[in-house]
């Protein structure tokens, strides 16, 4: 329950002005341009002609483009889900480790940020390459007889995506688990709950804010991601990210690119809306109205 806030505290303080100005100039106003562009027409030589039309949106909802949208959503969902499944136990270990181990693990999670992600994607490409260390190692120990071709496969795209986005999942999960009172697990056990029920009925509901934050942090950027799939997947599949980039850079069709961008914002908002709705109904914190008699 929120306390009513003092009216003077409700107004943004002066110190918030830089941030607000920043968002104004670099987010809201450009977004306004995108909206306007998306409703305009492409000029003959790539400019924008302010001739009002819905044509760009009609084109954007074409079956071809919807399929591209769909592959992006699939990739982002798979990435977010994989990061959650891999990251949750990791965050759990971090939150329950001794203080020294904990800080060491935190550093390990953050280290990847010290290198540019394109460089990291290349590193993965090399790692999984036909003559890369993994194949060399497996060959040397006789585990395989021929090098496995990972390159340009869905597997290497998946590895690249998870590697890149895992920290964004682990950190919020860690924050949630660090605050978690682990005696609750003992209480659940004491009341006769088997392990999986403890997980479903206590641990996950109690760390839901972390799960939601982590999922949003991973899903949203993963939806627009195209560099990793390009580098590791061999640029076979068109994704929303490169589709939109192409409109601005290659075809110079700014109005259509803008319409696609608007649709992408819509897709993100809609997916997260659905996700939040689902996670809110399950194990919602109960108030006076929901149960009994």
């Amino acid at each position: 329950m929120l306390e009513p806030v003092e009216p003077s505290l409700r107004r943004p303080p002066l110190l918030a002005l830089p941030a607000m100005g920043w968002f104004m100039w670099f987010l809201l106003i450009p977004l306004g341009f995108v909206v306007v562009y998306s409703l305009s027409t492409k000029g003959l030589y790539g400019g924008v002609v302010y001739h009002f039309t819905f044509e760009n949106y009609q084109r954007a909802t074409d079956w071809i483009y919807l399929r591209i949208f769909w592959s992006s959503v699939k990739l982002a969902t798979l990435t977010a889900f994989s990061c959650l499944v891999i990251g949750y136990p990791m965050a759990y270990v971090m939150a329950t480790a001794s203080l020294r181990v904990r800080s060491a693990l935190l550093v390990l999670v953050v280290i990847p940020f010290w290198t540019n992600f394109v460089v990291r994607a290349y590193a993965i490409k090399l790692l999984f390459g036909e003559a890369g260390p993994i194949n060399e190692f497996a060959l040397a120990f006789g585990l395989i007889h021929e090098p496995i071709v990972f390159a340009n496969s869905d597997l290497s795209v998946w590895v690249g995506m998870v590697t890149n986005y895992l920290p964004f999942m682990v950190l919020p999960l860690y924050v949630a688990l660090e605050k978690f009172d682990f005696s609750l697990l003992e209480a659940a056990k004491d009341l006769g709950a088997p392990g999986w029920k403890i997980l479903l009925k206590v641990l996950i509901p109690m760390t839901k804010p972390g799960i939601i934050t982590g999922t949003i942090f991973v899903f949203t950027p993963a939806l627009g991601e195209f560099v990793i799939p390009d580098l590791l997947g061999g640029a076979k599949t068109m994704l929303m990210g490169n589709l939109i980039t192409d409109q601005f850079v290659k075809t110079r069709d700014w109005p259509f690119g803008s319409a696609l961008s608007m649709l992408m914002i819509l897709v993100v908002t809609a997916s997260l809306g659905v996700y939040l709705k689902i996670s809110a109904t399950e194990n919602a914190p109960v108030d006076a109205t929901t149960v009994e008699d």
Partner: protein
Amino acid sequence: MLELKGLEKKYGRNYTAVKKMDLTIREGEFFSILGPSGCGKTTLLRMIGGFETPSQGQIIYDGKRIDPLPANQRQFNMVFQRYALFPHLSVWENLAFGLKMKKVPEIDLRTRVNEALLMVKMESFAHRGIATLSGGQQQRIALARALVNRPRVLLLDEPLSALDLKLRQQMQVELLSIQRRLKHTFIFVTHDQEEALTLSDRIAVMNGGNVEQVGTPQEIYEYPKTPFVAQFIGQVNTIEGEVKEARPDTILVSGAARRVLMVKPSRDGQRPLPVALPGTPVKILVRPEKLKVLKSAPGPEQNAIEGTLREVLYQGAVTQLFVMPRDGSAPLIVSQPNTAVTARRSFNLGDKVFVAWLPEDCLLMGREAALPVAENSVSIAPPLLTVVGPPPESSGAALA
């Protein structure tokens, strides 16, 4: 009946939290485990609950070994120190949690949850969130959440320690009345000696991983078997000396405050005289309320130490007087009830007074441990439950 046999818990190589322990807890009793922090009492409780694996020994309940069972398969429930209520569930759902896990049918579940809420007088809070409850209310819900499962044994880990004094006393009374009504076995861990004395049928006093003594509150308080128990439970005055002469019914101790002091067996015969050879260094232990402050020397049937009155602390129900003995040994604390008579008897600071007590009202112990008791001495209460442990010669003899 819950039996602990040779139960031990080691952490790493060097630290033993609970040392080889034998203990029997009877069905339906309110059994307290009392000790200072770090004495291993919580570890012991957690082993019984299944939250710690014993390094050695067995836990036997109703003739069956339960120590290999995980916590969720024991018919015990625990009230945790900081309650560990589920903050994402309502009061009702917290109570229903255990029953749902046991797949209790909905109708039964409702009745039982309602009963449990009624028992702790929280029926109007069923649909509240945990965060909206006060500490005392959370305490009640934690108790109800455990009781609703009808545990064979209820484990309570310092459940009242977070409450303020008034609330704690009120909860003590309620806890006791609930236990009397349900007749479940309660195992109650506490560091608060008063709480243990008030609530328990029997108490095990723990120190440094060992059980020092097991007995009824009265036995523990009146007939402590070790110096630790005497000093940990209640206040006690210690007067050092050495045995001068051992007669069949009296031991004379000299050196203490330049007086010869007498120690006799207690009148009810529950505390026989220990065996003490002349010259043995000993200490006499006597409770403040057994002492009297007099203006003139008492008769020869009483022990007396002369001294100066240094401090008078009025504490409402009692007054505590601090008397500095003439030879400069540690001050004696005298606790006098403020009855109509004593309240009017006034002393001034600096008065020369006599501290007197009956030879039957004090205990004789060795400097470090208890003195042995003779084999043929009277022991009225047969040891109901025994503490084995690496026995300092004392406990072995005490059990004989």
